[in-house]
């Protein structure tokens, strides 16, 4: 029976009259990598800050490892490594001093911090005022991971990182997962979520649309298809079973398809083709299709 490391019940936060998140019910189980996906302003960061006890909920509650996120936030922070969305540090301190400072709260993590800085190729001897955006992100990652906490909460972890460092971070996170670490991370980067997460939750306009296992979503095999015909497209293509979101502009056809590709190809090639491309639909498209929702992301 999986244990919930994070659970929220009707979690609600308003900023004045603006909805941050509303009625959010979510569970993250022990040892899983849970991706929190949604466009900017959807409520990902608000949820993370509520779980971290930075914001006080208007309604509902969040619990982390059995502790109330707001009332027992100090105990929660002993067990959680947190990477904020926009890390900020004291510019006159060096990276090394920051590592020592964070280690001093409970006397551990200093060596691990140095090792992580080495793996991420971060020069911690320099003052932070001379760091680039990417270097600050690396330092924030070091500080979040250095105590090897049982739970990691990361808001847009690869923000500002170059592709090589992103790869190193993925590797580190996989290692931590093997050691039993649970990860909740937010992202608007779909490939990142697909690559890392076991389960994904989509949040839109402050509401959790739903959560699914990545594997289940992939198995739906939703595909984006684009065809250019030499002349007219075949009749009744839009009526073919499994065709979704059919759009035609002259001799160009775009559609989403769920089902046996052979059936689709047989139908598409009834007329002469000039061009054809078939790709996997994005995770979000799959997700929205699964929940039968509009794909717009208007805020």
């Amino acid at each position: 029976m999986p244990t919930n490391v994070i659970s929220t019940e009707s979690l609600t936060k308003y900023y004045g009259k603006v909805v941050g998140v509303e009625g959010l019910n979510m569970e993250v189980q022990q040892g899983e990598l849970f991706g929190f996906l949604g466009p900017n302003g959807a409520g990902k960061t608000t949820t993370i800050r509520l779980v971290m006890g930075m914001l006080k909920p208007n309604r509902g509650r969040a619990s982390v490892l059995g502790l109330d996120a707001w009332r027992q936030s100090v105990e929660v922070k002993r067990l959680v490594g947190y990477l904020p969305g926009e890390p900020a540090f004291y510019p006159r301190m060096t990276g090394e001093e920051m590592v020592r400072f964070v280690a001093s709260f409970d006397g551990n993590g200093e060596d691990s911090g140095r090792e992580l800085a080495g793996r991420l190729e971060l020069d911690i001897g320099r003052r932070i005022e001379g760091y680039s955006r990417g270097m600050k992100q690396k330092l924030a990652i070091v500080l979040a991971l250095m105590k090897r906490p049982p739970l990691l909460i990361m808001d847009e972890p690869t923000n500002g990182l170059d592709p090589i460092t992103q790869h190193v971070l993925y590797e580190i996170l996989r290692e931590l997962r093997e050691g039993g670490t649970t990860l909740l991370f937010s992202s608007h980067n779909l490939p990142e979520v697909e690559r890392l997460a076991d389960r994904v939750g989509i949040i839109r306009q402050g509401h959790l649309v739903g959560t699914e296992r990545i594997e289940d979503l992939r198995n739906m095999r939703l595909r984006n298809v684009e065809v250019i015909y030499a002349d007219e497209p075949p009749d009744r293509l839009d009526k073919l079973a499994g065709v979704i979101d059919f759009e035609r502009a002259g001799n160009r056809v775009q559609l989403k398809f769920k089902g046996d590709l052979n059936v689709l190809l047989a139908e598409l090639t009834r007329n002469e083709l000039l061009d054809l491309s078939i790709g996997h639909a994005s995770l979000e498209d799959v997700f929205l299709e699964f929940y039968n929702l509009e794909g717009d992301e208007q805020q």
Partner: protein
Amino acid sequence: MIRSLAAKTLRERWRMAAIFVGVIVAYTLLVVAIYPSIGKVKTDYAKNIPKAFAKFFGVSSFNLTTFNNYVTLQFLSLMWVILVAAFVIAMARRMVAGELKEGTLEFLLSQPVQRWKLLSVQAALLLATIVGFVLVTVGSIVAFAAAFNVGSTYGGYVVFILPACALFIAIAGYSILFSAMFRDPGRAAMAAAGLTLVFYLMNFAASYWKSVEFMGWFSIFKYYQPLDFIQKASLPVRDVLVPCALGLVSFAAALWVFQRRDVAP
């Protein structure tokens, strides 16, 4: 943990505090050094100044016949208060509103540290800085007066230390409260500076117009009478307790607000 928080705060503040100490010492030197020259024209100069003007400066008259009168008038009654209050307000605004705006508060509170402890450590350091500034000021006045051979008795300056600290403890208390209340450090500083100015004007009005004399009791400057402290050289218990109580109550309110407020830039 407390040691690390204190070290971090000191690392951030020591430069500004050191510059400030330098300014206080230099200004004290300037004020004391020109006293022998001022002293020669002091009586004529004093006669021509309106009484209301003297009251605005927190003294009953521009009597410059003694060094203590002169130092109070030229320095301790207003200019020094403005300098130290500005420093206190600047430091207090950083404590919550400043760190919140810069995003460092989110980082600090992602560590296992209680909010009240975080604010208390910073407030304790500000208190130590205030005491340091007052001691440096008094030490400089006494040292330069002795060097220029212009002073006579210095016992009153020792008495002055406590009510002077109390004044800035009051200012620090409500400045921290505003810092905990506002998201914008500029607004927090404006509110603290504004309230300090209101207190000053209330005290001036109370000393000038009999009909509003009662207002003086509600101003922290009623309890800051530097010339009295220095001349009488007896500990003014009320003038220490009232501003300290205001500072403590304001700080308790700041803790209450900070414990409950959202922390996100």
